């Protein structure tokens, strides 16, 4: 190409590649600056702060690993971690199954499909605070719709958010309700599967179940893997809904005190920024390990077409 012959004599910034690089960095500069100032900077600062005692008003005082040591002995750290893991274990798979089922149904060819898709997607665009306020009414023990529905089947409705046993299931229910985002990703994945594969399967005599099990599911594994990773990361950081549902207290009896809420309480109620920073870093490491484990084992069940073509 002419550019390459031209580049031999011209300085790098006048080459096509050089000019392209300059434009590239100029265009992404606003984001880079924003990232460094508002994300990377605070992240590094919080690592430093996690080794200090810092109440905002006085300069941070270095305390070594005291915050981490205190965390190891703080029962509420374990309570909040248990609550969070409980919610992750149930909400993530149940949410994925629900989303996958909905996506399969919404991938059919029936009339008004756009209307159905919109209806199931709407919950995921409702702001967390608004949906929490709505669920407070739905889950109201005596007059709420959920218990009225259960009672119509003769089932006794639990106290939901006022019950220590049922508060976490209530949160899980609310999270599953907002699974429309995952559903849309699955729907896109389903529509990406070439029809020729189904035709080939039919010629080979496959029934619907075979087609789902042998074609749909294997080809969807990269999408499922993606939503699993994001789902676990997101649910570990759950905060807003529970904060609104429980007036920021994580009640009853700390049964919905999730990790980030306890972190927030230490930071902005007790003004223990050092301790809260240490909590944030432990959460970061936990999520990092979990994500690494998932990628480590992904090759055992996630099917990538491009890779299998080589083998």
């Amino acid at each position, binding site marked *: 190409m002419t550019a390459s012959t031209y580049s031999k004599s011209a300085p790098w910034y006048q080459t096509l590649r050089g000019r392209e690089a300059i434009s590239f960095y100029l265009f992404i500069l606003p984001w880079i600056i924003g990232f460094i100032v508002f994300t990377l900077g605070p992240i590094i600062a919080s690592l430093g702060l996690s080794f200090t005692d810092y109440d905002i*008003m006085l300069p941070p005082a270095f305390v070594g690993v005291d915050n981490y040591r205190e965390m190891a002995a703080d029962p509420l750290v374990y309570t909040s971690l248990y609550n969070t893991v409980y919610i992750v274990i149930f909400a993530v798979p149940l949410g994925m199954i629900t989303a996958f089922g909905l996506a399969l149904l919404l991938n059919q060819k029936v009339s008004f499909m756009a209307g159905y898709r919109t209806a199931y997607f709407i919950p995921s665009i409702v702001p967390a605070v608004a949906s929490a306020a709505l669920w407070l009414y739905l889950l109201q023990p005596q007059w709420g719709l959920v218990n009225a529905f259960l009672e119509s089947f003769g089932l006794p409705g639990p106290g939901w958010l006022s*019950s220590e046993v049922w508060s976490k299931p209530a949160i899980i229910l609310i999270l599953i309700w907002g699974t429309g985002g995952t559903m849309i990703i699955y729907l896109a994945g389903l529509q990406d599967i070439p029809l020729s594969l189904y035709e080939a399967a039919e010629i080979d005599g496959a029934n619907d179940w075979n087609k789902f099990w042998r074609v749909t599911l294997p080809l969807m594994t990269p999408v499922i893997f993606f939503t699993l990773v994001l789902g676990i990361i997101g649910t570990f950081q759950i905060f807003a809904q529970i904060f609104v549902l429980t007036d920021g207290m994580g009640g009853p009896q700390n049964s919905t005190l999730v990790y980030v809420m306890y972190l927030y309480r230490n930071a902005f109620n*007790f003004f223990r920024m050092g301790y809260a920073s240490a909590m944030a870093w432990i959460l970061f490491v936990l999520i990092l390990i979990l994500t690494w484990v998932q990628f480590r084992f992904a090759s055992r069940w996630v099917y990538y077409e491009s890779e299998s073509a080589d083998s």
Partner: protein
Amino acid sequence: MAGALVAACAPAVPGPASGGAAPAAEKVTLNVWWFEDPIHTAMIKTYSDSHPTVDVNPTAIGDIVFGDQKYLTAVAGGTGPDAAVQNRHTFLQFAAKNLYQDVTPWMDSSGIARKDFTPVQIEESTWDGKVYGLPMFTDVRYLFWNTEHFEEVGLDPTKPPTTWDELASYTDLLNVKNGDEMERYGFVPYLWGNSWMWLYGFLNRAPAISADKRTILADDPAWVATLEWMVDFYQKYVGDFETTNAFSQSITSTGLADPFHAGKASMSATGDWVVGDLLRIPDIQWDAAPMPVPNGGTQATWSCGYSVVMAAASQHRDEAWDFMQWAATEPGWEAKAAATLADVEAYWTREQIEGEPQYWPQQACYLPALTMLQEKYVSKLGEREQRTWAMGIDALENWTHGCGTEMGVAALEYWVEMDNAARSALALKVSPEEAMMTCKTKVQEATDRAWAAIDSKT
């Protein structure tokens, strides 16, 4: 920012101001972090109308009961408002952190003095001998009872229980059960109304904190005994903690403040503001008296409320002081009373309640304002309300505890841990003794940390 620019560019020509005399100087924009309800918004308008040289820019203060992240982070960042409302519960904790400006010099050169305020509330606004804010209003907790329920079970409706033994026997009489299910509760300590552990502890002479505010006394045998009594009371007369909690939630979600307001509780330990609510529900016949006292206990209650402060970074301190003084004294209270009265009248019309609108004022901490409210408004209410008001004045002078004074420099931690202690013991997860020990340990740690920071400054 826009306000400041407008103010800076304002013409030096006197406007059609009502004051008129002095030529309008450059208009000052005073940033005030304030309550955003209609009544407090109306107060700001009244102030602005009568102070043509000041342009008050009110912003919602947000949640200031469980910590005040907005105010704290702003002030720590060197900005923040000129003046703000603050809860006295955490007042010393924040004053000790230099979050408020010492206003003693302004107070000394003004016409108001510390003795002009209710004693407990001015003490709560004072740290290290210096005044850090002006107390605006406060509250007091009593026993309310439903006189119709008393008559129904053969109790004298004019004679409330005066001891904890009587409280128990009355509760037993007043409980209404349908099979195993409770339909009406005689009395539910702690969980319903607004009493918390503190009220019962103070009645039982339980000390919260040492005089130097360095030692948390939540492990005192009197606290353990109080919690033991409460757990026993639930087991005998109330029932399961969780069921009771769900019962009240089902009532509050209908918009009523409390089971007592719904006629589903016969007695309630709660605050004086409830009088205003009850006057709007003529169906509930009630009366109020000081809380029953345990054997060896003492007449007691507790009070909290809000003060108005000046932020250390304020660029308009004289104006901020003027606003603080206005808000805490008669002019502010007259504006507030007028706005509240209008709101009450509108409510009476809207809900078509029979009879004259009844306005029950909040208790002012500034004594001349308190007298003004009594003479101008309370005197128009019935005998029962006047008696309740007088009981409040007596409590404020003689037998109330200040929430801020009692909780010291780790007030938030103390509030949260005392609450956790009561809940875990009432839910039968830990013994009362263990619960109070945990509370003591955690709050003592927080208090020690706070003092280490305070001591390192001096």
